[in-house]
């Protein structure tokens, strides 16, 4: 193996490994702090994941959406936080958990995929990307005992198969593919209930987007950790469409129009 002075040397194509080797101090999961009292005493961990993010398959691919609220205890820490990230030309991820480590993982995952693509001259397969993310979730396990959970929901367009795919994870890095839809975070169950009632295979794009936003609306209705549309400040959940053409942001006015319809319908029931 050739070694170059004044340049970073490594023996594989992983950016995570390179970063851990060259700058271990920037990775939270390598800090090796002692577990929290609760974890050592065997009390079940309650891991805060105040959020709702979800993904739904439709005709052309997958819609992935999330609310905008970040909380600190009973306070709202941020009303505009973004929880849905474009990762590369064919994948996006949404995250639930502690904001700092979540954003770090999204950025690290973006760099990891781009790094691999440039070194190897071709992108990872959809399956390969999903597995890599699983390893990153697993590497974060020590931080879970500190109460810093990162839980991603990964959506990729599999170019070989010609279809969108949804992957969910558990804290040990276990990776599970969902066939139709999924939601995670504190409001995930509420969102899943809505999707279960209204989901159909091969929905048109507009219907899938409406269902995603209604599911978020219902989650915000029942879950304090999830922010609904903020009509005063004009802050709305965000959504992206993952298709063969790439990752497209759904424009805010389109999202607002859907919410206007949902709110008008709910209001008419109250009269």
């Amino acid at each position, binding site marked *: 193996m050739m070694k*170059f002075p004044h340049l970073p040397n490594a023996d594989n194509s992983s950016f995570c490994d390179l970063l851990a080797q060259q700058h271990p101090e920037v990775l939270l999961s390598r800090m090796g702090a002692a577990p929290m009292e609760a974890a050592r005493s065997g009390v079940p961990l309650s891991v805060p994941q105040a959020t709702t993010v979800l993904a739904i398959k439709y005709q052309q691919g997958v819609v992935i959406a999330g609310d905008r609220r970040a909380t600190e205890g009973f306070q709202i820490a941020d009303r505009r936080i973004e929880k849905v990230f474009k990762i590369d030309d064919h994948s996006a991820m949404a995250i639930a958990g502690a904001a700092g480590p979540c954003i770090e993982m999204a950025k690290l995952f973006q760099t990891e995929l781009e790094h691999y693509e440039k*070194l190897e*001259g071709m992108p990872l397969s959809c399956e390969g990307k999903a597995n890599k993310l699983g390893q990153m979730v697993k590497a974060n396990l020590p931080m879970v005992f500190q109460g810093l959970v990162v839980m991603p929901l990964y959506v990729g367009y599999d170019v070989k198969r010609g279809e969108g795919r949804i992957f969910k994870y558990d804290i040990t890095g276990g990776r599970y593919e969902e066939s139709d839809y999924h939601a995670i975070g504190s409001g995930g169950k509420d969102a899943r209930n809505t999707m279960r009632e209204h989901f159909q295979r091969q929905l048109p794009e507009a219907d899938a987007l409406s269902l995603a936003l209604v599911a978020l609306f219902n989650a915000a209705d029942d879950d304090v950790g999830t922010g609904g549309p903020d009509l005063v400040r004009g802050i709305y959940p965000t959504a992206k469409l993952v298709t063969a053409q790439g990752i497209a942001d759904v424009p805010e006015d389109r999202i607002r129009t859907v919410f206007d319809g949902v709110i008008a319908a709910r209001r008419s029931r109250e009269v």
Partner: protein
Amino acid sequence: MPMPYYVSPEQMMQDKAEYARKGIAKGRSSIAMEYDGGVLFTADNPSATLYKISEVYDSIAFAGAGKYSEFEHLRKAGIRHADLKGFLYSREDVTARALANSYSQSLGTIFSQEMKPLEVEILVVQVGADTQPNEIYRISFDGSIIDETALAVIGGRSDAVLAGLKAKMSGQMPSLKAAVGLCAAALDQAANQKLTPEGLEVAVLERARVGRKFRRLSADEIRHLLSA
């Protein structure tokens, strides 16, 4: 008792340089040329999968000539340098100048300290944003670094290719079509044969692209650009 034989440092450096130059001249040439929309790379490369030109970062590309295994290692080290810097600071802090300096130091150290010098010559190119000028750095096997303008040629009979191109270029920035035509003709001449679009490796750093500006041109695109 036999006397340990003595070689003067000058002689040793000369021998190493000659060895490296021979190795680099054995290969085929690669050209970087500025055009009105960015920077064009053209290489005489019969392989469709083993590249001489590669993306490094958003607006930075790499071209290597000489021994493939050696410049491929350098290419990867450059991507690691760029990705680390972009992650630790920000994407806009990754510059061709810093990367070229690291390459220069690395090659210089290897040339003076190792038995065998690297038989490589490389280009590090950055396309300027908006109205900023492009940067083209040519780095030789001994770490010497040259800041080129408009045009740079590495590998093979690079001096002949460079002279041929300079004779044909007007002072104006060529269009992409004109630039591809010029480079392909110069490589044809050096190779003493008409190179097919499949035998050329062509890529661009396109100033107008958002984000990652590096793009490879397919054989069909090359054929189209070369057609009259």
